[in-house]
């Protein structure tokens, strides 16, 4: 597809009046819009974050789509299809938000396929059972919501607005995931065991979705100053653990973490040690499904090329016809 976007290169890089306005808007907690002047690093950092987020939605379709044809009831099948469809929709709004910063969707897609762009590492774990569909909704979407709700107030307008809509749909997804697990937890012994096994496998990876501990997170500080990010990785992680402690009781299952406790002094929920070595391995491309996920995206993109070319050629011919008729 051809895409149009504003080109940042055409703009003056340094503009004293623009910079003053930018600083004022940030200080007032107001919004930066696509036509406003912004520091090159702000643009770069946002483009990286929003495109990574879009890629995560698109790659994230795969693990769940893996169960569409096998969903165990027609209602669950319909709900799962709708969920994966929402993710494609989220990818679309996010790519559009990133395009307002000057990078066309085509280039972002190429970077993803070439392995140059990142997406959430969580999607490099395999989705082995139907209970995983529940655990992903509950834990992975739950963690995503904790991360994303503050982004609704991100200083960049198009991102913040996209996040408002995405968060509404994500919270619906989380409820669906919880409902799947609840049904399994109250089902046959096999179903209950399937649910506990899924929670065991997805708990630690979902905690690691908040990113490395604060002292090791290189991009966080500047993002907080620019009010793209509002809370630190560890703050959000702790908040999430607190929520899970409440909800696992309702499920009647257990969190696979004996060290979860509320620290009265810090007012934070603490959790057991996480395997950051594994996190870095998966991030570096050595997770169980990294190669598979990228290959599937590449295949869909390349095998769809002739369709996109046909659509573009047809649109061009139609435009020519209209012009000739005029």
């Amino acid at each position, binding site marked *: 597809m051809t895409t149009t976007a504003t080109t940042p290169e055409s703009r003056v890089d340094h503009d004293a009046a623009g910079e003053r306005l930018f600083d004022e808007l940030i200080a007032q907690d107001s919004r930066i819009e696509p036509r406003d002047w912004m520091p090159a690093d702000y643009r770069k950092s946002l483009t990286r974050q929003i495109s990574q987020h879009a890629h995560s939605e698109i790659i994230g379709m795969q693990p769940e789509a893996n169960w569409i044809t096998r969903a165990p009831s027609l209602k669950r099948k319909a709900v799962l*299809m709708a969920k994966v469809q929402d993710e494609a929709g989220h990818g679309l709004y996010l790519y559009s938000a990133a395009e307002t910063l000057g990078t066309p969707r085509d280039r972002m897609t190429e970077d993803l396929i070439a392995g140059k762009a990142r997406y959430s590492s969580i999607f490099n774990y395999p989705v082995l059972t139907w209970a995983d569909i529940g655990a992903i909704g509950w834990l992975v979407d739950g963690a995503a919501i904790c991360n994303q709700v503050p982004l609704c107030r991100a200083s960049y307008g198009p991102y913040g607005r996209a996040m408002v809509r995405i968060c509404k749909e994500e919270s619906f997804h989380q409820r669906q995931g919880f409902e799947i697990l609840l049904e399994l937890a109250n089902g046959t012994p096999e179903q209950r065991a399937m649910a506990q096994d899924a929670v065991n496998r997805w708990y630690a990876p979902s905690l690691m979705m908040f990113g490395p501990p604060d002292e090791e997170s290189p991009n966080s500080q500047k993002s907080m100053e620019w009010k793209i990010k509002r809370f630190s990785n560890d703050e959000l992680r702790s908040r999430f653990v607190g929520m899970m402690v409440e909800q696992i009781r309702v499920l009647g299952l257990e969190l696979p973490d004996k060290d979860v406790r509320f620290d009265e002094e810090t007012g934070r929920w603490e959790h057991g040690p996480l395997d950051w070595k594994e996190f870095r391995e998966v991030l570096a491309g050595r997770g169980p499904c990294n190669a598979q996920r990228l290959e*599937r995206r590449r295949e869909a993109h390349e095998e769809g090329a002739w369709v996109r070319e046909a659509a573009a050629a047809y649109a061009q011919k139609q435009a020519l016809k209209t012009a000739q008729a005029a």
Partner: protein
Amino acid sequence: MSEANASATRITPGNALRPEDIALLETRPADAVAQYALWLGDDALILAQRLGWWISRAPELEEDVALANIALDQIGHARSFLTYAGRAWDKTEDDLAYFRREPEFRSVHLVEQPNGDFARTIARQLVVALYQWELYSRLVDSADPTLAAIAAKAVKEVDYHRDHSTQWVLRLALGTEESRRRMIAGLKLTWPYVEELFTDHPLIDELGETGVRPSSLRAPFDAALQAVLDEAELELPAVPGAVGGGRLGRHSEHLGYILAELQVLAREHPGASW
């Protein structure tokens, strides 16, 4: 539909009708009506299963969304038809979808056909959408108020499916040389399975004003298809029709695999609820 019927079943055509509402109906369909509902429900179910495969594999994101929409509409129609059919035999939609064996299914061979490339999927979609639109736009006048109500909801959705597939046939047929070649090939592969859609069966004679006679849909279908082909500068494929048999439980070789995947988890846990 008469006022009296509407109040008896709490359904009015055009209102959103959920499978859950149909499950609560006090009236039970006669066996023949239930058999007919299976025809339509199985077509929609198997098509949804095929289309669901595309989600996350489509040529562009917009098409992941569009094909998912169509699959969702079809699964919705399937749930309504199967729920209604099940009322005759004290079975749920899931009993029928997950615990019938292959010869008990009533889907036509067309919906069982592989997705192939995008052009083949679009060719199948064009045929199905034109057929279903002609069918549902008549079924809204069925003497059976529940079938009429399901059709009233479905016909609006299938109208969009017609538009979607028509637009893609035009783009592919008139786009590039490659897309035109693939569109022609897709239509050719689809064509043998068209005839079965319009074959009458003795069941139809039992239904009277309740069902729609398949052979009566052929002329309007042909006219609608011809209009699309003319605009796309395509010709009707010169290939013979294949012997069908789906309505009698004689299926293509593909259905076994489709059902194996569809039913595997439910059958591993018989009696479980999800």
